[in-house]
Every structure is written in C-alpha cells, then in structure tokens.
C-alpha cells in the first residue's frame, strides 16, 4: 500500500452520551463488553496497513492514553512512526462541534509536515464499523479524487436530522453539501466522519484557513465543494453511529445479534483492543444466562438476559439483570433487579435494589450515585 498515515481525533463528541462516561471522551467509551470506541477507527487503519497514526487527544487525556498504552496491541509500538500522540485544542470540557475542528489539525501541522506519506486518512471515533479502508483508498486513487468522503447509505427510519450531507451524482461525485432533514423511508448518504486526502492538499487547506480555526473541517469542504474533486465511498456492511446515550444503548444491543457479531468480530479484519489479563468467566451452579454478551473475568450466580457484561462484573445469586449494560468491575448484589439500565464502571448496586428504565429511555447509574 502506498504510504499513508492516519489521524484520529478523540477531541470530539456531539450530544455527549450523558452520564455514561463521567467526562470520558467518546473515544474512550467502553463498547460491546471489551472494546473502546477508539478501537474501531484505529483497527480499521491498522488493518489497512497504516503504520503511523496520530491521535489527537481530548482535554481529559488519561482514559485514551491508558487504553493505548505503548500501542503494542495495534502493532504500533514502533521505533519509526507508530502511535504519535497529538495535542488537541482546548475547547471546553464538552466540545460542541460535530466533526474535525480545523484548529485541532492546525495545532499539529508539524506532524503532517515532517512526514513523507502521500496520503492521510482522517477519522473520528463515533462509529462502530469494521471496514476495508484499502477499498476506499483504491477507489480514491483510481478515480483521481482530491478527497474521498466515507459515507453510509441509510434509509431513514423516521424523520431525522442528519446534519451536513453530501449531494452526489450517480457515480458518487459530490455536487454540493446541504443540511439534510430526511423523511422516513428516504435514502441518505450519511457522512461517516472519515476522509481520505492527499497530505499536501490537507496542509494547503490548513494553511489557507488560518483565521477561522474554530471551523469544522466539513464546513471548509462545503466552501470548496465546487473546486475540489470530492467523491463518496459507501461502507458496504454494518455501520453503527453513536451520538447520544440512546444511540449508544441501541448500538450496544445490536451486538447481541449473531450476524452482526460475525461481521464485526469474526472476519479477516480483527478489531484490536487493549489486552487485560482476566481469567475466564465463571458461571455458578444456579446461574441463568440468556442472549447475552459476557466478557472475561465475570462471576455470575444470578440471572442475566439480553445484556452486555464487561470485564470483572459480578452478578450475585438472586440478582436479575435484564436488557442492561453492566460495565467493568460492577457488582450487582443479591436480590437486585435491573432493567433497561446502564451501570458504569466500578459501581456497586446494593442488595434488593430495583431500578427499571424504559427501553426508549434507559437509566444510567454511576459509581457516585449512591444507590
């Protein structure tokens, strides 16, 4: 593969999944029992043979850096290239912009200047997807595009705001951008927050817009839509976007479907993540577990159904966990009943506590909530 480097912005998060993360950036939100959102963007790049990835840090740097460690799991613990930690711009604790802040890139022009790679892939961390970036890159080269926008063609399930979307001709060339408000049943090309671009062009854009630093990168593309050859590449398979607590819960529950598990986790392209050495999960003699995804190191004596258990969760005898997400090292004590609840890491639910949310309005329990 031609020399290509990656940039992943973790300094990002519209409609922050309220409560789930205790100020964790979206990039560091745990997903599907053992992953973090960042793993998808990072694995997609590594699986396409990219060996240098810049990570733009959010203002709270620890969760991201702790997860990445020395980068070994992604084969990025390298002498040359590998993981390059980049500083994000200060934009308050909850950045509002839905995309790449131009300023985040401006702050790190030296990373782009000091590299001989011809192409750059930009991505953020809001999507659950296992995609073949090589295909997008081959199309980019074949078509001689200036920019390839990675999109997902979706049928709107209800009237929905899609933000800025690309309007294309039949072969996928972008004509212009517009704010989309799709009707139910309408087909929409949703932007996957991922771009392939020549490094030099990206630098030109950065240098050419020094004074509007707080602008979103997509806005810049809109300005130049008529002058640049922008093409879309449509992701063929599963695509799960997370932009709120509710979409986080929906995407999580989709992971219980075997065909989605198969596509995301059992194909030739592996989703890589930090390895923590936990023993296998132990099911007690009277445990009852159904239709659930269970990570290692759990201890289950109670009832679990339609749920996702992260590492080290303990479900005591007589506890019932239904349609829940139980994060790392939580303890659900005997007799407790949880339904439609997200319990964030290290939380302890006291005996006989009963908490029920609604499927369309899940509850979030944090460690400090004192339940």
């Amino acid at each position, binding site marked *: 593969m031609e020399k290509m480097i990656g940039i992943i912005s973790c300094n990002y998060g519209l409609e922050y999944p309220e409560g789930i993360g205790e100020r964790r950036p979206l990039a560091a939100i745990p997903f*599907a*029992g*053992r992953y973090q959102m960042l793993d998808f963007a990072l694995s997609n790049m590594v699986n396409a043979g990219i060996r240098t990835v810049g990570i733009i840090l959010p203002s709270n740097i620890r969760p991201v850096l702790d997860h990445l460690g020395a980068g*070994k*799991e992604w084969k990025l613990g390298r002498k040359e290239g590998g993981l390059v930690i980049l500083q994000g711009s200060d934009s308050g604790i909850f950045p509002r912009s839905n995309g790449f802040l131009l300023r985040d890139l401006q702050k790190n022009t030296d990373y782009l200047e000091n590299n001989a790679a011809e192409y750059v892939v930009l991505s953020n961390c809001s999507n659950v997807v296992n995609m073949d970036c090589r295909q997008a890159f081959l199309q980019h080269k074949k078509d001689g595009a200036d920019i390839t926008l990675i999109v997902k063609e979706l049928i709107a399930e209800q009237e929905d705001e899609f933000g800025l979307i690309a309007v294309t001709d039949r072969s996928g060339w972008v004509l212009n951008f517009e704010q989309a408000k799709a009707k139910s049943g309408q087909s929409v090309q949703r932007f996957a927050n991922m771009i392939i671009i020549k490094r030099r062009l990206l630098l030109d854009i950065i240098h050419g817009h020094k004074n509007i630093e707080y602008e979103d990168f997509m806005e810049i593309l809109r300005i130049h839509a008529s002058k640049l050859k922008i093409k879309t590449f449509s992701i063929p398979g599963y695509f799960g976007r997370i932009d709120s607590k509710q979409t986080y819960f929906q995407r999580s529950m989709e992971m*219980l479907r*075997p065909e989605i*598990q198969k596509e*995301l*986790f*059992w194909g030739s392209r*592996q*989703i*890589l*993540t930090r*390895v923590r*050495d*936990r*023993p*296998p*999960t*132990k*099911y*007690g*003699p*009277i*445990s*009852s*577990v*159904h*239709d*659930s*995804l*269970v*990570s*290692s*190191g759990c201890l289950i004596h109670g009832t*679990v159904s339609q749920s*996702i*258990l992260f590492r080290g969760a303990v479900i005591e005898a007589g506890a019932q966990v239904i349609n829940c997400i139980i994060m790392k090292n939580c303890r659900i004590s005997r007799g407790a009943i949880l339904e439609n609840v997200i319990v964030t890491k290290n939380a302890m639910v006291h005996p006989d506590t009963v908490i029920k949310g609604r499927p369309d309005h899940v509850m979030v329990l944090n460690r400090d909530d004192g339940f």
Partner: protein
Amino acid sequence: MPKKEWIAMLLAGGQGSRLGVLTRHIAKPALAFGGKYRIIDFSLSNCSHSHIDTVGILTQYKPFLLNSYIGIGSAWDLDTSDGGVHILPPFVGEQGGRWYKGTANAIYENIDFINSYEPEFVLILSGDHIYNMNYEKMLDEHKAKGADVTVSAIQVPWEEASRFGIITTDPEGRIIKFSEKPVKPDSNLASMGIYIFKWKLLKEALQKDEARPGSENDFGKNILPMLLEEGKRLFSYDFQGYWKDVGTLESYYEANMELLHEEPGLNLYDREHPVYSTIPILPPQYIGPNAKVSNCLVANGCTILGEISNSVISTGVTIAEGAKVEHSILLPYTTVLEDARVYRAITGEKAVIKPHCILGTESRSDQRKSSIAVLADRAVCGGSRHA
C-alpha cells in the same frame, strides 16, 4: 550485555507422553489449561511478577510451535531488549547433534548462554507445574541464609510422598538428606523441582557431573546428592499455596476440574498476580437465548447455544443448539455441533464433534468409573453415534 542479578532456566523438555494424544502435536508446556491459559503461562507469569527479565527455555522439540506461542514474550512483559525469552533447543555442532541427556545436561549444554548474562544466581524451573509463586521471596531467603542452593518444597500427603524427591531438613531448614522417589520416605516434604543456585557453584557442579561416567545428568538424582555429599549449604524453601504437577492425564483433568470449585485452590483472580497468556483478541462470549450454563468456566470468543455444565470451555469454542457438554474440558476452538453429547471428555484444539455424536459415556453411574475420553487436536468425532 548488562550483567544480571539472576536469570531463569525453564526445563520444558518433557515429552508429555503420559498426556497421550493431547501432546502429539504440541509440547507439554504449550498444552491449553483452565480455559484460556497454557501450562507454561504459570511459570512465565511467575517470572514476570518476580521481576526476572531473562528466561531460557530448554526444549527437545522442534521449537517453532513453542516459538510461535511465546513470540517475543510480550504477553508476560518479558520483551526487554537486553533480556527476554530465548528458546534453546539442542544444538547441532559440526559433528552433529543429540538430545539433552538429562535435566542437568540441558543446563550444561547452555553454559555459554548463561555466562553471557554473568548472573549471580540461576533459577531452575519446570515447565509443567501449575502454581502462582513469587520467586523473589525465595531469592531473599536464599541470600539471607547464605545458601549455596535453595530447593523449593511443599508438604504432600504421606501416601504420595514416594512419587517425589523427598527432602529431610534440620530445624534451620538446611537439607540433610535428599532421596529421589524413596520407597520408604522419612519426610513428606517434596521438592517442587525449583532450585536457586549460585551460578559459579552450579557451573562447576555441572562440569564435574558431566565428566562422571554413568551419571544420568539429572538434578534430583545426581547434582543435589553430589553437592550434599560435598557439604555444600543446601536449604529448603517452604512454599505455601497451590501447586500441582499436571504430567498425567488424570492430574491434568483433576487440576482443571478443581477450578470449578467454589473456592479453587488456585486463585486466578488475584489482581496483584494475574496469570498472563498469549491469546488472540476475541469478542466476549455469547450465550444464546436457549443456552443453559451451569458451574462452568467459559473463555472469550465462545458461542454457547446448547447446554454446558461442570466443564471448562476454552477460547473460541462453539456449542451448537441442542448439544450437551458435561464434566468435560474443551480445548480452544472445539466445535460441538447440533445435538451432540460430550461426557467426561477432553477434546483437543479444533476438534469437531459432529451432530448427534456422543463422546464419552452417557450413563451417570458409568461416568465415575470410566476413564476420561480424549479426542486429539483437529480430530473429528462423527459418523457413528458412539465415538
């Protein structure tokens, strides 16, 4: 090469023939254990937690399978540029090569390797034991007592004592007698096959032993008795905790099943002493809508749609709808297809139990008496209704 205080030499040469078909393709230390581990993980994790950064692994076998499992040692934090894990098969000189003659000969043949680190102490380990141990404490005692050799020892039941190397000590712990598998043991303190030697002393002893005609070049049979006779200071280090030799099919099965106890002797949940392992990054296990799971250990990457009970289910195993597994150990990537049955069995890696097949004996009264059914790696149990 910087000088090291100590390095470890792990004897992983055992042919494992008493483990039958399970070790036909895999060296014993690489045999899967406890759902997600391999036997050698325990020794290597112990090394890592004891801050040993250089380990030589002595193996008779074509080393590449072990090589590809151990890789560069990163699973155990042993991937340091000036130490690390080194696999040391017998060496072929201009005159040809031959297998190591005994445990002591294996170390003797690698004197150059050890010398290159100029260690003060050498820790000798066996690759087929299951236990969590901090060797640093043993080294501290070795130094405090000014010992020439320290032998780690554990109390075993008197009736089993004649299967071990038995140690008799004076009240200070100094070894006054060492008998390899004595018919009438006068102590129940058994050597665990773990020794700390002053390297200078060990080197001389190995050279002397190598020159002795008729020696079996074995630590327990030759080296320790010789040093005792010479009046060297040998001490016993009393180990408290779980320790199990899994050299036979029965003890291997037993050790796995012990993990299902409510309070297993071996603590895998100790945050201060995690057991490291090289495992592929797989998604969490999925337990299907109609599955039944009771008293089992289940590893990542499993898909359980049928019923499992009292079993150890390793990484990547699939149990189809309607299948039943009881009192069994399923090694990695075993597939149990629709309506198949597995009773009191061990299935090798990537073994397949075809639909409606039965492996093992169904009748409950027969199970206790019957021996353990074993299916080799990649073997297929199928066609007929009985294996």
